[in-house]
Each structure stands twice: as C-alpha cells, then as structure tokens.
C-alpha cells in the first residue's frame, strides 16, 4: 500500500513493536534467568536484567546438568535430541519420497487404495496409537535407543502427500525424456525427481526437524535410561527435581540451549523453505 498518513504508520509500528515484545519477552526472561545464580533465582521479584553467572551456568550445564536428570550433562541430551530429530527428518523424507514415487509413477493393483490408507493415517496422531506403538517398540527391544526414539515417528502422511503433489506438477515429458535417454526408474528418481523437488525437501526438512526436536511425550515414554533423555523432555524432569528447589537458572539455560538448533535450521534454510512452500513454476 502506498499511503502517506503519519498516524497510520505510527499505529502499524506500534502494533508490530507490541507484537515483538509479546513474543520476545519470555525469551528475554529465559536469557536473564540463565545468567543468575540459584540464590538470586529464588528471590522475588525475578530479575529483568542479566547477571554475571552466564558462563558459570553454561559450564555447569555442559558438564554436570541439573538435579532432575541425574547428572547427565545437557550436551549429551542435546546430542540425543539432534540424533533423534535428524533421524526423524531424514527418515521421513526418504520414506515419503519413495512412497510418493511409487504412488505417482507406478501402476500397481490397489494403488489408490494404498494412497488413501496412507492418507487416513493423518487422522491418527502419535497420542492415539501410543499404547500399541509402545508395545511394538518394547517387544522389538528398542526402548532406550535411537531407533526406538525415531522409527515410530518416521512414517508421514503429510510428507508423502506433499511429495505426491510436487511430483504431479512435474510434466510427464520429463519422465519420457529420461526414458528415451535410457534412465531406469531409480536413476530417474535420483537424477531428475529429487533435484527437481529440492526446495520441497528443504521445506519438509525444516518442518520435520522441528517436529522431531519438539517431541515430548514419546521420548518421555520410551526412555528410562538418563543417558537417552532428550533435551525437551529433560526440562520437565528438571522442574520435578524431587525434594529440591527447582534450579531455575539451569532450567532456563537448558531451554535456551534447546532453542538454538531449530533456530539455526530455520535461519540457514529459510530461503529454500519459503521457496519450497510458495514455488509453483517448474
């Protein structure tokens, strides 16, 4: 809009600034809390300006961790989360790209039946099928392992559907040209389809990485070994630190650290991500 009304500019800026404050204030509080010692954090009012213990807290978090997690350093839990999130994101992309490839490019009996079966699973979130899933994972001996953390979350109707839509926009001539060039199905998949869905893969990776990273209920159920805890669920464990006072500065430091990887993923892949969601021209 090209308008020159000072009061309108003022109001729109005011709205935006208020919005930013609402979003940013909790993060600021988190940051401030992570820079004070335990004693200060038990006193009211809570501090609103940073203290001097940021690096002490960081060192303690990376080496000893907080009470509730049994002395497992945060670094270990960050690693667990990272491995889980990466396995989920990559696994989802691989599985759904392949199943979308089968559904779009191959003619086999009950093709649409399979598609609808996949589609219907959209209605069954993890929470609904959690008991049977747990039983399966336990029977397979995958409790307290990265496989157990990631495999049950890998199947994805959303990603399959997104890949299907992307593949459908790729003109048939592309397949025909590749066939005349002598490319077999897998060759076509890797040489033509995947590169052409690059932005779509990036967008899915961002969404799925964050989805994996933020998993709470599932890791809580299947990890009993402290060394397999993920960072997101550990925050909750820290608050319920038995008889102790919650170590707020540790909890906040952990939250801060837990926020960094998803932010990094979004920031580095933002350009591709937006392209993947909006691009229509092929």
């Amino acid at each position, binding site marked *: 809009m090209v308008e020159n009304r000072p009061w309108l500019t003022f109001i729109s800026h005011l709205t935006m600034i208020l919005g930013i404050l609402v979003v940013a204030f909790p993060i600021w509080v988190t940051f401030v809390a992570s820079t004070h010692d335990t004693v200060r954090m038990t006193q009211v009012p809570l501090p609103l300006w940073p203290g001097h213990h940021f690096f002490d807290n960081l060192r303690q978090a990376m080496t000893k961790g907080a009470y509730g997690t049994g002395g497992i350093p945060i670094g270990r839990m960050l690693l667990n989360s990272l491995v889980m999130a990466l396995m989920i994101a990559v696994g989802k992309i691989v599985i759904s790209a392949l199943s979308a490839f089968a559904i779009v490019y191959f003619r086999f009996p009950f093709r649409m039946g399979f598609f609808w079966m996949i589609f219907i699973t959209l209605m069954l979130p993890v929470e609904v099928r959690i008991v049977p899933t747990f039983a399966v994972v336990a029977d397979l001996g995958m409790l307290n392992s990265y496989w157990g953390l990631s495999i049950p979350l890998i199947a994805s109707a959303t990603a399959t559907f997104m890949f299907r839509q992307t593949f459908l926009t790729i*003109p048939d*001539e592309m397949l*025909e040209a590749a*066939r*005349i*060039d002598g490319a077999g199905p897998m*060759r076509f998949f890797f040489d033509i389809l995947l590169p*052409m869905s690059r932005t779509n893969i990036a967008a899915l990776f961002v969404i799925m990485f964050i989805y994996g990273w933020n998993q709470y209920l599932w890791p809580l159920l299947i990890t009993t070994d402290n060394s397999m805890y993920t960072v997101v669920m550990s925050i909750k464990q820290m608050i319920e630190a038995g008889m102790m006072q919650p170590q707020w500065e540790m909890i906040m430091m952990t939250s801060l650290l837990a926020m960094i990887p998803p932010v990094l993923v979004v920031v580095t892949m933002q350009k591709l991500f937006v392209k993947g969601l909006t691009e229509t021209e092929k």
Partner: protein
Amino acid sequence: MAHVTLQNIRKTYPNGFEAIHGVDVEIADGEFMVLVGPSGCGKSTLLRMIAGLERVTEGTITIGGRVVNELEPADRDIAMVFQNYALYPHMNVFQNMAYGLKIRKLPKAEIEARVKKVADILNLTDEQMTRKPRELSGGQRQRVAMGRAIVREPSVFLFDEPLSNLDAKLRVQMRIEIKQLQERLGITSVYVTHDQVEAMTLAQRMIVMNEGRAEQVGTPLDVYAKPATTFVAGFIGSPAMNLIPEERDGRKLLFGIRPEHLEPCAQADASFVIDVDLIEPLGADTLVYGHLDGGAADARVAARLHGSVDARTGRLPLRYDPDKAHHFDAAGGQRIE
C-alpha cells in the same frame, strides 16, 4: 540410419477408445515424413508408439528391420524432441545434452567431444552451454532440445510438434533450420504437426491423418494436387477447398475447386457467379467470401484472387480451369477421377 515400417498399427486404450485404426506406412531411410492432422486425430499417439512411450495394441513396428514393439524407448535407437522441450531444469545445457550419453556409460572425453560437435552445429556458444534452461529464450531451448536428440546419433528422429510453443517469426526460422539440419544429417525423421504450412514445407512425404486413419500418404504436392478424400481436400490448403454439391448421372457428388484456382472474368465467360459477403485484402492477394447465386444449394464459396480486386459490386462472376477441378463421392468422400 534406418527405415521405419508400420504394419497395421492399432491402438486401443484400456477404456475401449480406439485411437488408431490400422495404419500401414513405410518410411524410407533418410526420409522426412510429416504426420499432419487436426487435434485428436491420433498423430501424436502414432509417434509415441514409434518412440515406445505407448504400447502397440496390434501390429508391428520395425526400425531398421528390427521389430521394436517390446523394446524400451532407450533401446530403439531413436531420439525425440518434445513440444515443451522437456529439458531437465536443474541441469545446464551441457549436462542436458550429455545425460543420455552418461547413462550409456560413454567415456567422458567422448561425451565432451560429441556435445561440443553438436553445439557447433547448432551455434550454441560455450557461455550458453553452462546456462540453465530457464535462462534461455524459447528458440534457444528448442535448439538445446534438438541438440540433446542429435548428440545421441540415433537412426530416427521423432519430433512432437516442436515448434508450436514459439512465436510466429521464430517458428519460420526454426522450421528452416530443422529442414537444413535434417538434410545435412540425412537421418530418418518423423515429424508431427497440426500446422499444414509446416507439413507442406518440411515434408518429403506426409501422412494426413483423420480420426485414427491415414487418409492419404504422399508428397506435399501430390496431396495438394490430388487429395484422396474430402477431408484431405479441406485440411490442406488455405482457405479450404470449396466443395459444392452436384449431381451427375443421378449420383450425388461433391465438386471441389481451390480458392486460388478461381479468377474473376466477364459475366459471359463465368463458370458461376457468387454473391459477395466479405472481402479480406491481404495485399498480394484478396480473399473473397460469398455464396452461390441460385445454385442447387446455398453453398459457400471462397476465392483467392491476385492483387487487390474491387469486388464490392455484390455479384462476382468467376471462372476456373476444368483441369483444376476435383470430384468426390458425396457419401464416402472418396476422390473420383
């Protein structure tokens, strides 16, 4: 290099629709054969069957004496140029042209030499070879698509309406380039188009298709001079041939005369007189549309007259050379000599 034969080719789709009703054609080695017809006549289906992109329901296709019905497109020794070019958008021009050779596991040096040679033939600069297809103009993309076909050194080229996405001027230019290229390389080519000018100018021989049948096979001038059916008569030539109902020996016939074979004359010499409805001056020619005056039927007549003709008089006497007239059976549409 190879000749291509189609023996009694039929195509029936799974839903029962019969797209091709038995086509028999022999395409000689090095010949430029054009398949022409209105949309939906089956010309693209026929081409795609030669390419191996559609299954042949019945009949035999041979390329260079080898039956190819069950062969994959890549094993048929053909190359195809698509209407929308079908260039791989994520590869640059060089990679696009080299992809087929790479799959065939040719040595890298040979791939480079072959692509370079074709790039020279098509006047593609080194700088253009590193560009992505989206950074090229329509004509350049067309050239790359042809390059991708040539680089494979196939024995048959297949063109599926390769010029229809270009603007009129470029189309004429590329048409000439394709023709020169084909003559230079001497590779058997099958070219599909709905544009009769393209068909007439490019073809050594052409197949005029209608509703899944080959109505006529012949050289462009043959087809023009002696259309086998009323469909061909109406399809080739612009404006279309005038077809006027007549009766001879009690048989219902159609009398055909091309608009360009009519000329104005004095009332006394006139073969017939038309009432002028519309005049389109084209500069070199004038198109006159009218209807027969007092004829058996109210038949429409078009005439292409030399120069700018003043035909606003309402009534225009016309005559023709009887040698240029055609006669067709009114019911079946077959030509009668």
